[in-house]
């Protein structure tokens, strides 16, 4: 085995755990070497592996970078690569774009058009792209647009590039929760919750989105139960930052700060530096909820290891950290509002109720 042989590197990557960073780094290195040797097919495979690894290990920015490379090569050599898988990846990327405030609305719009056009063959009614437009509208703080696209998405017939059955049900639940209709949301995910349908992230993220709404509806036993079941599923997947935010704030509203702090510490490394900033903002709100609750409980200092300057030697000065987190939230809120030309995201982020903000945050 050699570290200069791209084939070896690629098979090493493939032997690594699916969600590991090592898989990403090995695949990226293989891609570079294939490219340097001018081996297009090998390079494509390696970029594809890296793209997948980036997705699962919490590097959406790299996922986008690899996808753009593959799309370019696909356009240069139209019949050489599997277009279906590529478009699938493209779809994921487009849904992430609004999470980067430096990308302008017009560019996002252009990408949606391009992606929708490419998918037409697999999705004649545009169902998949309309669903993404619905999410994008919400991330852009465009509520009327979101309602409009929701209608169009739900009226369209499914093509073959829609998500897996489990994800579809989860999307459905998310939609009803967004509409504030808990019962219908629950009805949508029956087969997911009794195990008849599952995928890598469902029902993991499904439980997470329900717990706070359930608790608010007074169904506290069920909320507690789903929190335990859901957390059992996500706790080993730090990459599911949004779901972690829900499980963290749930323990804040139920007053279990010990567990909230432990949960925060477990994923703060990735959550607070998550490259896609909208998800990071959501995690910052969860962090703010925990720190705020600690401050309210009269704790000035806690033993808690947070990344960067938020803690020192594993200890957090609660009020100082809270101020820092608020600053970071403010910065991101401003960046999103400036790009979005609405104040929806900013107002949500600045609200006095960080738990409610996490609950309503657009995190499809």
């Amino acid at each position, binding site marked *: 085995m050699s570290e200069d042989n791209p084939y070896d590197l690629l098979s090493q990557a493939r032997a690594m755990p699916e969600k590991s960073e090592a898989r990403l780094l090995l695949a990226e*290195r293989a891609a570079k070497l294939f490219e340097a040797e001018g081996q297009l097919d090998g390079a494509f495979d390696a970029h594809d592996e890296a793209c997948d690894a980036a997705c699962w290990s919490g590097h959406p920015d790299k996922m986008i970078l690899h996808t753009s490379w593959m799309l370019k090569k696909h356009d240069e050599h139209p019949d050489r690569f599997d277009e279906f898988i590529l478009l699938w990846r493209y779809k994921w990327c487009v849904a992430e774009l609004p999470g980067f405030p430096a990308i302008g609305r017009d560019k996002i719009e252009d990408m949606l058009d391009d992606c929708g056009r490419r998918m037409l063959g697999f999705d004649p009614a545009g169902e998949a792209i309309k669903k993404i437009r619905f999410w994008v509208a919400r991330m852009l703080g465009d509520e009327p647009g979101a309602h409009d696209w929701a209608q169009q998405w739900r009226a369209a017939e499914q093509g073959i590039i829609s998500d897996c059955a489990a994800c579809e049900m989860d999307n459905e639940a998310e939609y009803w929760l967004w509409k504030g209709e808990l019962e219908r949301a629950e009805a949508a995910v029956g087969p997911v919750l009794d195990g008849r349908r599952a995928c890598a992230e469902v029902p993991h993220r499904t439980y997470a989105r329900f717990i706070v709404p359930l608790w608010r509806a007074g169904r506290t036993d069920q909320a507690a139960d789903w929190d335990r079941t859901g957390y059992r599923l996500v706790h080993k997947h730090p990459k599911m930052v949004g779901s972690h935010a829900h499980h963290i704030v749930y323990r804040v509203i139920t007053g279990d700060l010990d567990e909230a702090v432990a949960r925060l510490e477990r994923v703060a490394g990735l959550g607070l530096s998550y490259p896609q900033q909208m998800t990071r903002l959501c995690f910052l709100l969860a962090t703010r909820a925990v720190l705020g609750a600690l401050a309210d409980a009269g704790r000035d200092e806690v033993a808690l290891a947070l990344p960067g300057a938020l803690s020192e030697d594993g200890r957090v000065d609660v009020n100082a950290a809270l101020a820092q987190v608020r600053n970071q939230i403010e910065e991101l809120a401003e960046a999103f509002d400036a790009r979005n030309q609405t104040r929806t995201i900013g107002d949500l982020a600045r609200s006095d109720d960080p738990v409610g903000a996490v609950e309503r945050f657009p995190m499809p």
Partner: protein
Amino acid sequence: MSAHKFQVHLGGLIDLLSHHLYSGPEVYVRELLQNAVDAIAARDDAFDPRIDIRLDHGPDGPRLHVRDNGIGLTEDEVHRFLATIGESSKRGVDAVRKEFLGQFGIGLLSGFLVSDHIELYTRSAKTEDAPVIHWRGHKDGTYEVGHDPDRTAADFAAGTEVILTARPDAHALLDVDTVVGLARHYGSLLEPPIVVHDGMAAHPINDEGAPWRQPYASPGQRREALLAYGQRVFNQRFFDAVPLVSSAGHVDGVAFVLAHSPSLAQHRADRAYLKGMLLSDRVDNLMPEWAFFVRGVLDVRGLRPTASRESFADDDALDLARDELGDCLRRYLTHLEQHDPERLTRLIAVHHLALKALAADDDESLRLFIDYLPFETSLGRMLFRDIRVKTPHIAYTPNLDAFRQMAAVAAAQGSCIVNAAYAYERRLIERLPAVLDGITVQEVDAASLLESFGELDLDERDLFADFLAEARHVLATRQCEPALKRFAPTNLPTLFADNPDAAFVREVERQQDEGDDLWSAVLDGVAAERARAMPKAQLVFNLNNPLVERLLTVDDPALRQLSIQTLYVQALLLGHFPLRPDDLRLLADGMIGLIEFGLDAHARWVQ
């Protein structure tokens, strides 16, 4: 409007079941055994349970009879449970207590996978004088029921006999070897004695019982017997066999330590029996995740399988069982550590990844096994015990590229940097200080390595300022800052020390070079946050290197520039960094220029 009842086309349904619900026609043996075992469990009175399978030839072809002396069925029950698909007598309170295997009421249908008729004689054990009932079900959905005048209570003891007649395409499935094989496959751990009779020959199916529950004369014999069993089950040799038992979920069995290291991407595939009946060879969630160095054979009595038959329902009981099974493996490893370190060393040579996975999540194991674990370091592959002898201050990098860049240089200074880029190393190393006294760890990157290099003195700074300015000029558009330092090895003229953010930005620019306006702008947006920090890689020239030393004294600025740009591209090439089109141009221009310089010098010399 008037109400109607759905009509089910049984033939179609059977096809559907055989293709989707059942993995293959051979499961008919499992379903028949399962019903026989359930019928035996349902009987409360004292009797000697037994199941006899008989093979013979009937007027329409080869036949299989499965006879049990279980609870049987009354005429009423026959109508209720056999006539309706999906009906089962095994639901309700009693079912929980008696631990029935079936419950969906579709098992019997699997008989149609091999036979066009299912025939059944049954006599209920509930009353002394119950008659013998004869039932015949056909593939088209019709059935007949009647009393059998030929079989009287006197010659048909309580229980049931199910008879299948092989369709021409299914003869092989009713062949004696196949039936014996399938019965052993599914039923070798079942409790009631099962015998297959073929004419005069009798083949006992489960007379041996679970090998891990047998007494052995010595631990050595036990190990031999279990290893032989593992080889029979999985068709491969194993390194060792470890008994497993968990009171949670009522699980027992054996874990076989693989003789080779498995791929981490591979899914777990343990063989599990449910109350003695084979459930699946591919159960994926019963053993702890880190235990990928073993393959288990387990009998489970107290956990619920999911409909797929490949997992158990993810509940607290499963968590507890998994922990207990993990403890068995941990105890085994601990035992080796104390009594057979040589075997442990051999095991770790193959399975260090699994041990790292375990230790990364478990302090106790970390303390116990860390010394045996190998790491890739700048000084080569080393066991941790040798690393800590060199220094208790462990330097590591979680970045593969950074490790590659630093390894040669660090080795030349004799310093040990651990490559923590792989799956578990980082977490493992970061946990060390909390677990081991006196060990400290520090993440290093190329930049921190550079800090350890010799700096220029003030005079040298003065002397080489122009050179650095020129280099800066050459590298201006490349997110790269030149520097001059002294370091080993002296044969290395430059070191390219990358920065992950700079690498990302460079990657983005490299793609933008290839055009495409739409993506260009989007990628700018994706990279914006990283770019804002203005990250830079460093190209460090080594003053200890003779070539660099000479280069610094050259006073022809054109020659210096050509050398700088060529060295830059060479550094990229050495580190396997991808080249952008203008890097290639830089290299081409540099080479041509240097050749011309050489030729000119040669011409002057010839004159």
